[in-house]
């Protein structure tokens, strides 16, 4: 993998990140939003693992953090889904634009 280098992975991760952000902005469905979050987290993870591969001091740290992120992402997905279900129960929709209770 040495001849690929770090940069392509970073670019890929950046693309995934941008896609995730685009998901946030464009999707009105709450689940879609959640998918965006997954994409963003994965982008970060990809960066971490690539760094573990290419930076000598991070061989183990990169992976460890990636694992932690995966775990937390799973937990976050669970909680987010729970929140959405609750929201759906209350509002009968998953349209996030309807979730404006925080409006000032």
């Amino acid at each position, binding site marked *: 993998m040495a001849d690929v280098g770090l940069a392509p992975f970073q670019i890929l991760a950046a*693309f995934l990140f941008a896609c995730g952000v685009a998901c946030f902005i*464009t999707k009105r469905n709450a689940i879609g939003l959640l998918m965006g979050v997954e994409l963003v987290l994965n982008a970060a993870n990809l960066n971490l693992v690539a760094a573990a591969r290419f930076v000598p001091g991070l061989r183990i740290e990169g992976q460890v953090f990636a694992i932690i992120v995966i*775990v937390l992402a799973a937990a976050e997905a669970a909680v987010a889904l729970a929140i959405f279900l609750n929201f759906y129960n209350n509002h009968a929709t998953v349209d996030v634009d309807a979730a404006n209770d925080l409006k000032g």
Partner: protein
Amino acid sequence: MSFPVILFLIVAATTTFSALGVVLSRSVVRSAVWLLGALIGIAVCYFLLGAEFLGAAQLIVYVGGTLVLMVFGVMITNQGPFAGIHTKPVEWILGGSVASLLFAFLVTFSLRAAQPSPVSNVDTLPSAGPIGAAFLGVPDERGTAFLLPFEIVSIHLLVVLVAAAYLARAKRRPAAKVESHG
């Protein structure tokens, strides 16, 4: 162009295409399928990078767990009138431009940063054994250990799961009940 490069290009193209699919598809279900592709692509990337354990974990936890959870979520909530939930063209343009701007910046910074070359030609990273040892507090050759983060994450997970269970328990408000029945 060596084989790994070609392999990487293929994987990267697949992942990119899937990620675009996630963003662009109208239906949530389709998005979920596209997300599956993207996640698998990333897992393959991990394999390419030599992090087999992570790749496996990615496949198991994400593809097997998180995505299934999401599909469940889609199925539970996907019964109301869907017509209202449409993204306006303006939002498409806005989202697209913002995302591409962000992408451009990130790429700029990635390329500007110093590009280190891999230390050794060993194509594998430390596997499950060393990682597990690190999590359990066994220091490696440089003395790093991750017992405390591990504990924190564990507790965190526990809390989160309890929270999820609490949030998700059925608790319909009377008003909502009337609405849904009516």
